[in-house]
């Protein structure tokens, strides 16, 4: 078990390394303009541009540049090319907002995903189940930026029920914090609620036909006991897995659009802005930040599964 975990973690580190190289290459090979000239401002002069090149090492061979960038990333010395602000500081400043968004959305989506999934399975085939199914597909089909923009406008701007975007620090006003995050949470969890409820519904229906459930029923357990002790316990496992993975995805940049629409100024919005400006050090940092959470949660899910099911270790299944 330990060996599997170690192996899994080593491969996670290798994947992160590859991601960093790839990101670096995407923004170096493709002509994105000369950063030295852009840093020189509106009226660049030759001596000025040369001084910048020298100082930032833009003339070094590409692998040296990669090495420098990675070193600076790990020592926390990376600064943006265009604002010259420390990138790690900026990420640390934005991270609580992204975490708040991700955690809240994760809680909401699991909560409602489970409620609707169980309800749908209980009432399989009835009209309420069909309505939930349709609603779930609708959730999968709604682009979060569109839904978010409309919610922000109608519920925030027009009716004034919610704030019209923005973020309030928890320390400043806990209720303001909660209130400002309400719409982003709902908008972001729509998709996942749709997804979880569907998966859970069909899982429950499948599990109910398994032998051990029939045995349980035959033993004379009440429907509720069967549901709670046997069916749900089994069916929730894949949902929790998905949930763990999705949490990684949201933290890893899946929330860019939500942050942008609701103006939360978290890591995602920082990422979007830096990509627009092709600000390489920032892009490197936020991509690695995102990839880190995706890879980490993937590894955790794999290891937990392996702990539960020894077959996986033999198979070394490449779980998503």
């Amino acid at each position, binding site marked *: 078990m330990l060996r599997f975990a170690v192996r899994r973690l080593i491969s996670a580190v290798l994947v992160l390394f590859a991601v960093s190289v790839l990101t670096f290459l995407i923004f170096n090979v493709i002509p994105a303009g000369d950063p030295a000239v*852009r840093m020189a401002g509106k009226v660049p002069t030759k001596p000025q541009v040369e001084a910048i090149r020298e100082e930032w090492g833009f003339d070094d061979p590409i692998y040296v540049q990669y090495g420098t960038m990675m070193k600076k990333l790990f020592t926390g010395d990376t600064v943006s090319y265009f*604002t010259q602000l420390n990138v790690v500081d900026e990420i640390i400043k934005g991270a609580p907002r992204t975490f708040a968004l991700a955690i809240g959305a994760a809680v909401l989506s699991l909560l409602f995903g489970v409620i609707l999934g169980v309800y749908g399975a209980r009432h399989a085939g009835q009209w309420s189940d069909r309505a939930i199914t349709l609603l779930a597909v609708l959730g999968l089909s709604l682009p979060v930026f569109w839904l978010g923009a409309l919610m922000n406008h109608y519920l925030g*701007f027009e009716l004034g029920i919610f704030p019209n975007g923005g973020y309030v620090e928890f320390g400043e006003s806990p*209720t303001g914090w909660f209130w400002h995050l309400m719409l982003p949470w709902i908008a972001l969890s729509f998709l996942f609620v749709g997804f979880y409820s569907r998966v859970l519904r069909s899982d429950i229906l499948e599990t109910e036909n398994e032998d051990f459930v029939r045995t349980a029923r035959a033993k004379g357990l009440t429907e509720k006991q069967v549901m709670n002790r046997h069916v749900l316990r089994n069916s929730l496992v894949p949902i929790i897995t998905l949930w763990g993975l999705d949490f990684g995805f949201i933290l890893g940049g899946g929330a860019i659009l939500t942050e942008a629409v609701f103006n939360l100024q978290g890591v995602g919005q920082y990422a979007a802005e830096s990509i627009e*400006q*092709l600000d390489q050090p920032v892009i490197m940092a936020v991509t690695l930040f995102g990839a880190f959470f995706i890879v980490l949660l993937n590894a955790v899910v794999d290891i937990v599964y392996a702990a539960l099911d020894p077959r996986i270790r033999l198979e070394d299944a490449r779980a998503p």
Partner: protein
Amino acid sequence: MKSVARFLLVTLVLAVGSLTLAACSDDDDGGGGGDSSAEGGSITISQSSQPDYLDPALSYTVNGWEPMWLVYTPLITYKRAEGAEGSELIPGLAEDLPEISSDGLTYTLKLRDGLVYSDGTPVKASDFEHTIARVLNLESGGSFFYEAIEGADKYLSGGDPEADISGIEADDKTGEITVTLVEPDASFSNVLAMNFAGLVPGDTPFRNLTEDPPPGVGPYELTSSEPNREFVMEKSKTFEGLGIPEIPAGNIDTITTKIIPNAQQQAQDVIDNKLDYMQDNPPADLLPQIKERFEGSDAPDGERFEEHTTVSTYYFFLNVREEPFDDPKVREAVNVGLDRPALARLYGGTLAPGCGFLPPGMPGHNESLDGPDCPFGDPNQPPDLERAQQLLKEAGAEGAKVTVWGNTDDPTPKVTEAYADQLDKIGFDVDVRILGAGVYFQAIGNEDTRAQTGFTNWFQDFPHPLNFYFLVDGGTIQPTNNQNFSNVDDLKINDEINALALETDLASVEDSWAALDEVLVADNSYIAPYGHQKQSTFFSDRMDFSCALFNPLYLNDYSSWCLKEGE
């Protein structure tokens, strides 16, 4: 699974709890504390994005200059006044305007006595050299202006920050400062008055100090700066006692600037008095409503909004090195066929149509070009499309392939698309290329790009026609980083620029500059100007509108502001 269920239950309870709490709690009272007199008080204002830098050596944007010119005063500065008066040079930290030698190469100034920075450090004459050294050493966007000083290029290439700049002599005992130039430049007084030259102490480190701005001499000091969130300016405790009567010491005690990317949210907050001012123009979407409610002294909800034309020009460059714009007739066709009022609508009314290059408010502005007498037709009326089509036909350039360039800054993509459609109507075969705003000017300024025509604009750095005309000076063309996007290289224009550049008495040659505009635009159609941008002042109800001044250079003057009685 048990633990998960319990976790869910807890969160549910928490969620419901906070929901009720939030519903009960009152709205935050956004606008900051409310002192009860028109003197002092604090306000909260907003900008859409973090200023490029909060370091005078580095900042080169309106967002940065508008707050910082009140924090870092240069040796000479501009009159705190509106209109043309606001472009007048006055002594700042120097006792008088510079004495210029007869060859135009040497500028001599004397520092006022008894000046101190906001932290109490005395100001020394040698701080000026350090200030300029920082601009050069930090590879600031302002380097360009100070490379005119003798020895600046040597200092820059030497790489030693502590090295001497041979063209600057400063005597700490007498306070005398002498600046020697490589060649005469009549606009150098204006360069000395730029924000880059706002004095900082001689021990200010050679790095970007945005997160910890250095002290300066000015009505305000920057007391805290948290990039991308907010920065705070407080009234300087030392400035009022310095005895610089021309520079008012300000009224409001504390000005907190919040960074709020969403313009709509900012405008709504100003309307609701949660913010007291927004630095950017209100978004086009809310502008009609804001104008209706708050514009003019008889506005239904009180006067809170005003528009001022800035000293700026928006134009399309027409690259004379590329077909079909090598033909003056084709360029004329573009100028004649350009639907300027249509483009103004895309700016939601924040653009004053015109066809002159030197904008209103700039010495040498040619009024006839911005009015009905414009040779291409009244810029406020729809164009004579038939004449434009005819001109294109005469030039034999019908169906000529043209790629129109623009960038992603709002509303430029729409403007570029509208321009492309207008060219299409004149008879060109048009393609559109929109580039990211960060790389756009670099791309079109590279001769390999061979950009035929596209969007560009210029806002004055200082009130001297040279600050516009270097953009169309044949001598400034370079293979990369070119700013002369049309590649205008006309002997007549070049010679006239060089001659007028020597004249230190600007007022005496204003007519010659205005005549040059005729040569550039009317005679040769080297560029296709379409208007001048307006900038707004938009206040909350707490602010006393009558106090506010709008300086043509640094725009809204925070030091003039005051709160209403009782706020």
